């Protein structure tokens, strides 16, 4: 069965989230920082009057920090707890993939990441990481500790 993914880049890696869970993609918005918040929470944004938590996906996925001059994009996801915005480097295409290109993530992947990265779809020229959006939205203590260590 074919599935559609909204793709984006993080530190040159290609990630995808199910298209139906994406509410919208928008350019950089003014972010209000939240003191004392977990480090992966970039802050709050005003999405047409709705206040949405912005999560730095690079931080959440334990990747290196975004260069300070690069402006992130917002991928707004419909989560169980309302809209959440993922800050990503750049938006890719919408891709349609078949189930047979999917493979689970290798065992060597760190446990904290394996919960979020379901696996990869083998595209023609590269691998697309499939992100578990609900898990990525959750602020577990482990995630907190991991980012604090970076």
């Amino acid at each position, binding site marked *: 069965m074919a599935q559609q993914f909204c793709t984006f880049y993080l530190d040159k890696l290609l990630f995808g989230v199910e298209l139906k869970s994406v509410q919208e993609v928008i350019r950089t918005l003014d972010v209000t920082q939240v*003191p*004392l*918040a977990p480090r992966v929470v970039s*802050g*709050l944004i005003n999405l047409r*009057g*709705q*206040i949405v938590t912005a999560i730095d996906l690079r931080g959440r996925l334990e990747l290196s920090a975004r260069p300070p001059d690069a402006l992130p994009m917002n991928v707004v996801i419909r989560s169980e707890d309302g809209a959440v915005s993922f800050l990503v480097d750049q938006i890719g295409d919408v891709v349609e993939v078949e189930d047979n290109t999917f493979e689970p993530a290798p065992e060597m992947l760190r446990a904290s990441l394996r919960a979020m990265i379901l696996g990869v779809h083998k595209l023609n020229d590269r691998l697309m990481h499939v992100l578990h959006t609900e898990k990525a939205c959750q602020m577990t203590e482990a995630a907190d500790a991991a980012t604090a260590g970076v």
Partner: protein
Amino acid sequence: MSEGDIVQDFLVESSENLDRLDRDLVGLEKNPHDQEALAGVFRTIHTIKGTCGFLGFSKLEKVAHVGENLLTRLRDRQLTLNPEITTALLNMVDAIRQMLSEIKSTGTDGETDYAELREALTRLLSPASVGSAQPSLPSAAGSQTLPLQEQLPAPPPAAGETVSADSPETREKVVDPAVESRKKNSDSRRKPTKGKIGGVLVERGHAQPADIAMALEEQDRGDRRRLGEILVALGLAKPEDVVAAQQVMESKPRETGPETIRVGVNLLDKLMTLVGELVLSRNQLLQLANTLKGSGLQAVSQRLNLIVTELQEEVMKTRMQPIGNIWGQFPRTVRDVALGCGKQVNIEMQGKETELDKTVIEAIKDPLTHLVRNSVDHGIELPEERARRGKDQTGRLVLRAFHEGGQVNIEISDDGAGLSEHRIRQKAIERGVITADQAARMTEREIFNLIFLPGFSTAQKVTNVSGRGVGMDVVKTNVEKIGGTVDLQSTAGQGSTVRLKIPLTLAIIPALVVTCSGERYAIPQVNLLELVRLESQQTQTSIEMVHGVPVYRLRGRLLPLVYLSRALQLAENHEGTSNSAINIVVLQADDRQFGLVVDRINDTEEIVVKPLRKQLKTIKTFAGASVMGDGRVALILDVIGLAQKASVVTETHDRALAEKATGEAQKAESTQTFLLFTGPGGSRMAIPLDALARLEVFPVAQVEMSGRQWVTQYRGQILPLVRLNLVLEERRRRLQGSPSPPEPGTALQVLVLNHEGQTFGLVVEHIVDIIEDMATVKSPATRKSVLYSVVIGERVTEILDIPAILRESGSVLSSAAAIAKAEVAN
């Protein structure tokens, strides 16, 4: 309409009706001859029975059926209501409620068949089993009781039958009761009685029952005229009597449904959110329009502004509910508790229609229930004891609600034993809540409020209702959670009153916006006490350290200071340190005060509160977030959470209590605080600070002339401006002839004063300082409107006499007020 919808409607309607049943039944117990209430009860049960039979809930139908049988006897006066019957009927209501909730969750009416309850209800049917039952009234007395017999059940709504309000008089109203009761069970298709003109005529003695029966027979034979017309035509009633009877009927509330429709709460919440967003967009537009002066945009945005404000108010209203909605269950609660402990209690309610936001109503329901139960269980004494004390054997519990100053006050008063100060004091020392030393210094009122501390109960014995020491502290916590306060007053032997002050709504709150390290934060106004600004030269000396903890002496008391930037671990703003001015926001957290040091104080604003998502829920320092006028998000500080984070509030109430005691003591001997300013001609003057409402600066362009008086528009009112040079005697003489508008292009520094309900502005030259220490050198006043002169900071300062100033300018003020009124009227 699908069957699911029908069931849904049935559930909603029935549960509303059941709430009313509780109330009616308890009311009936007091006044068993209230036939109207009885008929209402009967109708409700009958409707439930009919509908659930139709929907196939047979167990529910059976229970309702036996209940209806019992009610029929009561209605026909073959039985009189007594506590036993009331209890059985209330149990039936509970059983029905139980089954309804079963239907709601599972779709069936459950497994229990309530055989015992049905048996009890059936047993009560025979008068012999009830000792106090009275024989039914002879129906020969029919002519007096006539119209009341005929409250017939409305058809179940699910049957889809509609009843038109102006249907011709149906006959059952006025027929001989004996005939009626025979027919009662056979004729089930009767329409409900609407507009009983015949009944009214008989009641007022303008017609005979027999005549009306005759007229009704006319109608039965196909006469399409209305009953009144037939009576007049037959010469059985005078036209004017019929007209009068019609007027009586019209003044009675119609039984047809009110002009309302059911709207889902979700929809209202959504509307509220959308209006909140609209308010924000409006704010943004207004800011934008102000930068584009001269364009037509400003006029349009002003109009939009008005409409949005009105819309916001109206939508807020849709969420308002009368407090009577939750009070409705209290008669039942009181009855059950009173019966359980052998007491007699009458409940009175005042201000049932006082409205509160839905979320607030939900939040105070449990605290209120607890307080009511508590009053009955502990407050009101047993009948014998009341008699011994010379009180009415029946205790009185009064619930009162009213609006005051943008808040709702709710009072629960009983005329019971009251609290024993001595016992609470003893208990508190026994439990180690306070020391004997502290106890000795506390006022009676403070002692009473100790019962709101956790684990404190003075009940002599624990009952299953209350007295376990959980509860009062929960009441306090819950009320404070929504920004309310609890206070208790009591007179031994005469009763106690608990007073709750509750905000009207939680969705939109007034807040003070401050800036710290470049970000804005909103502080809910309920927590705000005052603002203090220390100029740079003062900061060095006035902020002192208690072993590293910064404190500030606020009118002689040490105020611990919390630096917001440090509490939030923000990058320290270097402009805000050591050598520039410091802004202190004095806040109230629990029963402690502390000063929050921020970089800048912006303004007060009405903000829309949005909750934080789960990722941020764990941070106790923030209560939520809000979108500001410029579209950016600002966090709302949770003052209690912040105080806890900064360890201002600790678990021990010890210090707070001690402080309260010393605070009170200090207040008694404290010196007055004065606002120092320069008046006309640069002379130094001062007024007592407590007369001051606000300091404002008005551009001269906003000042208008109203007769000889300067006025300005201020917060939707016309504020008269008093010029000191006109009031102060000898100068006035000089200037009297020439009241002139102010010099254009300048701004007026105005002290907004409040004196005995009168608000006016005092125009001054320049505000100097706030001073606390009273100089001892006093000399009597040299002119009118001055209390006396003192030396402050080596300068002679006149302390103004505000009442005298008001008197001096009184004639001017009242004429200005009259003109203002006239202007408003135009």
